[in-house]
């Protein structure tokens, strides 16, 4: 009896597997039809906007959301530093002094006055910025009063105090007295004054050509002290009770009440573990004060769904109108090759560079010839294909995307190779100049080139990229020991881990100025032991290593430093500023060579069949929610 049962089990297992295989095979046959039509298809270019009927007021716009709503600081504008969250905040909930048109491309990066009436010109040799507030802008429930310059000053002072969780307060340390608040020497920033309710003035310690851009970031939007005080010293706390100045508010804002003791979380946002973020119209919002937000839908539902496949299925079926997820190559292929779906794949420049980072202190990357050789050997086309092909971006050839230079440096490619696929001969010629190739063989023969630690993440994308990088590096004699870590950023951002190489990093702009690349990524003054984003340790010296307790072991002598170059560019404005950053980009690529940049990413978004109008928000690199419309 038992033996026959085993045979039945064996038969059942084999049969089950056969059925499984047959089921997959039948799906394959349908998809292979799709494949055959893909052969001649060309990749779509960048899509600025999308129309599918007449945009009209009303309806609910539903977005499938793969990550949590915890973002980086529980949606609190003071500390929130995630582009997806910025997209919601800036389009729908808050109005900083400076704003954007919520459009794609260069137009979308162009500053406008939002809470302020216009974009001011600096006075006092670039040391003073005066903003006039637009009249008629009110806070939504539960505050329901006119916004004044003191509310902006309050938000700025909240940001200056580290106890409130601000994550990019460093951008404002050029304001007089800013750092005194951070160090506890003062309670308010002396360089901010409000001569009247409609005027706010910032006094700087040095000319800062991009200061207006810095005043367009969400943390600078007005916060009413009545609610803000309830969350003093509680990072992330205000996210649950954001008082809107924008066209929408968190659902339930009208049902909460002050004072602080009775202030409950607004029902539409449940924080990190919440499944939905629901926004409804703000009754205090006056459309006549806002020339650029269209505000078509009556309601926005942002819905958590951790299954990316399910998100795309629901978008295709019309259950979701939009998504914030990462389309797999198969999804890109389906939407690129199916004529009925093609127009709903919307790909736009993300103002973001993806790159392989090399640590200048760790062998063999402490030799610039090795770093240059890596730039010459890596098959960037293959890496882009691992991402999903040309829809996902263009091949990167230097540090910041050309859009950051008003489309400058588009032709600059110091390590060009045929079809961007790598060139063994060129790389070998570079290797021969390296100390790690004493025999001048054209290969990295020293022991330092073997089993070099590479930190990778555990995403499917990383598993596709790693073999490409390993295969290419092996051509010049470099072999890797790969460590796959879920959440690799934490490791590579810790300086005393001394990670020589990682395939994980990418960097997107904070605002449309190259400083947001160079200042954060290569300024030695920004080096910190953990959370460090200067992965290559550009500018590090033994003294800095000791003073900041970075714990770096390796070759710390002769590391190139670009701090003075950054400072020089920061003092410039206009075209001179752009040219300065371009020159620094070239210097980075030829004299420092900290990266192998390989992709200037596009943000590929798929919309549902019920969307009638869609735009891209270049500032936040997300859907321009203030422009979208959906069938009712």
């Amino acid at each position, binding site marked *: 009896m*038992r*033996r026959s049962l*085993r*045979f039945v089990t*064996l038969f059942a*297992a084999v049969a089950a*597997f056969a059925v*499984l*295989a047959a089921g*997959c*095979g039948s*799906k*394959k046959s349908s*998809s292979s039809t799709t*494949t055959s039509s*893909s052969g001649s*298809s060309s*990749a779509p270019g960048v899509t600025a906007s999308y129309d599918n009927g007449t945009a009209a007021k009303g309806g609910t716009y539903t977005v499938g959301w793969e990550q949590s709503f915890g973002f980086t600081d529980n949606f609190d504008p003071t500390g929130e530093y995630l582009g997806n969250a910025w997209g919601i905040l800036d389009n729908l909930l808050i109005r900083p002094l400076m704003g954007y048109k919520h459009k794609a491309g260069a137009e979308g990066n162009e500053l406008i006055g939002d809470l302020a009436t216009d974009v001011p010109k600096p006075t006092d040799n670039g040391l003073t910025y005066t903003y006039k507030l637009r009249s008629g802008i009110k806070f939504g429930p539960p505050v329901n009063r006119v916004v004044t310059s003191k509310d902006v000053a309050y938000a700025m002072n909240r940001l200056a105090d580290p106890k409130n969780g601000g994550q990019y307060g460093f951008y404002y340390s050029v304001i007089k007295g800013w750092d005194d608040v951070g160090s506890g020497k003062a309670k308010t920033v002396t360089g901010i004054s409000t001569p009247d309710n409609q005027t706010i003035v910032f006094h700087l310690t040095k000319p800062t050509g991009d200061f207006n851009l810095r005043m367009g970031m969400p943390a600078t939007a007005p916060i009413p002290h009545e609610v803000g005080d309830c969350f003093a010293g509680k990072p992330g706390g205000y996210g649950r009770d954001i008082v809107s100045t924008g066209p929408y508010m968190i659902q339930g804002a009208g049902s909460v009440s002050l004072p602080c003791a009775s202030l409950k979380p607004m029902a539409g946002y449940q924080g990190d573990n919440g499944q939905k973020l629901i926004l409804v119209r703000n009754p205090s919002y006056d459309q006549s004060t806002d020339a650029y937000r269209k505000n078509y839908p009556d309601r926005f539902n942002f819905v958590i769904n951790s299954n990316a496949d399910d998100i795309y299925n629901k978008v295709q079926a019309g259950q979701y109108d939009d998504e914030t997820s990462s389309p*797999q*190559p*198969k999804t*890109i*292929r389906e939407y*690129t090759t199916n004529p009925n779906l093609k127009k709903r794949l919307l790909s736009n420049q993300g103002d973001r560079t993806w790159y392989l980072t090399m640590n200048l202190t760790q062998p063999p990357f402490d030799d610039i010839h090795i770093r240059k050789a890596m730039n010459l050997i890596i098959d960037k086309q*293959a890496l882009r*294909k*691992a*991402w*999903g*092909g*040309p*829809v996902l971006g263009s091949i990167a050839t230097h540090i910041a995307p050309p859009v950051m230079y008003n489309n400058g440096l588009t032709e600059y490619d110091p390590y060009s190779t045929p079809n961007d696929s790598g060139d063994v001969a060129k790389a070998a010629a570079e290797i021969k100049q390296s100390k790690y190739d004493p025999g001048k063989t054209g290969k990295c023969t020293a022991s330092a080139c073997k089993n070099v*630690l590479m930190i*990778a993440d*555990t*995403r*499917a994308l*990383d*598993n*596709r*990229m*790693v*073999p*490409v990088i*390993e*295969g290419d590096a092996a051509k010049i004699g470099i072999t*890797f*020991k*790969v*460590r*796959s*870590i*879920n959440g690799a950023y*934490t*490791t590579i951002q810790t300086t005393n*881990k*001394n990670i020589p190489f990682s395939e994980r990093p990418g960097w997107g702009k904070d605002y449309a100025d190259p400083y947001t690349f160079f200042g954060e990524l290569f300024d030695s003054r920004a080096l910190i032991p953990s959370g460090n984003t200067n992965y290559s340790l550009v500018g590090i010296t033994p003294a800095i290593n000791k003073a900041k307790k970075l714990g770096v072991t390796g070759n710390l002598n002769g590391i190139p430093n670009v701090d003075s170059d950054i400072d020089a560019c920061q003092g410039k404005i206009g075209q001179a500023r752009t040219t300065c950053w371009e020159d620094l980009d070239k210097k980075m690529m030829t004299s420092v060579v900290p990266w192998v940049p390989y992709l200037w990413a596009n943000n590929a978004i798929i919309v549902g069949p019920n969307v009638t109008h869609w735009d891209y928000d270049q500032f936040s690199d997300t859907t321009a929610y203030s422009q979208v419309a959906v069938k009712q």
Partner: protein
Amino acid sequence: MTNPPEFQVSSGGALALQPVAIARKSPSRLFWERFRQDKAALVGLVVIGILILVAIFGGPLAASITGHGQNQTFDSMTDDFGVPKGPNSQFWFGADSAGRDLFVRTMYGARTSLFVGVVASGIALFIGLVVGLLAGFFGGIIDTVLSRTADVLLAVPQILIAVGVVAACSTSKEGCLGGLIQPGLTVVIAVITIFSWSYIARIVRGYTLSLREKEFVEASRSLGATNVRILATEIVPNLVGPLIVYATLLIPTNILFEAALSYLGLGVPPDEASWGSILNDASGYYDVAWWLMVFPGAFLIITTLAFNLLGDGLRDAFDVRSER
């Protein structure tokens, strides 16, 4: 009425009973006679033999036949969007999502899966044997401490803890415990071992509790044998049968454990093939690249099935009381 076979009537007619030698059968022969009747177990044994050969020679042989390295990427084996292409005359199992030869990787994957399964099970068996013997034979406080430790390990959510340990041990070059546990294969083996030995320890303890009361142990003790001698010569030999059975059942369990960790992206590094990591790769393409799931999945099923059938057969063969 016929005579019993051991007595024969002499040809002279006189009633003279002649003794006939009884054919003695050793325990191993008895075991083999019972085992060979189990066709399913024999099939399992043959399949495992083939899998071992595949694990040792399969990867290099496949690479040699196809001319494809296990980490060699082929641009032609992914389409313009990076979606892998299916089987053809040069890529018998098709390609994985990085454009690598799936046939070669599946063969190398056999090595990883069997290595992890066998090594982790071997270590777990050893630890479980020692702990179970000590707990069962000495009892008292030793039994309490060791048994409760095993109970704790049985009670914890294994996958969750394993995910945590693997992640923690993979965040540095050095690994864990001063470099004793290295990221990659060794940490996977260590984690699997941690959660496997307690099953064996419980079983061994139970057998030992029973065996230590047997007459032959009493006899040995009365002759002055030490505890170590009793354990080595009386207890352990009687545990060999059960241990072999449980080893064959533990190996497939641990192969699946490794596959689960690799499926979660926490197993072997991406440049080392394992069936679990290939299945992880397949999860993003299950509806457009059937081959990614079918080939490693088939090997995984066949392997676990073969070990389970063998283990089942061994249990029946060792257990003289079982009915066939």
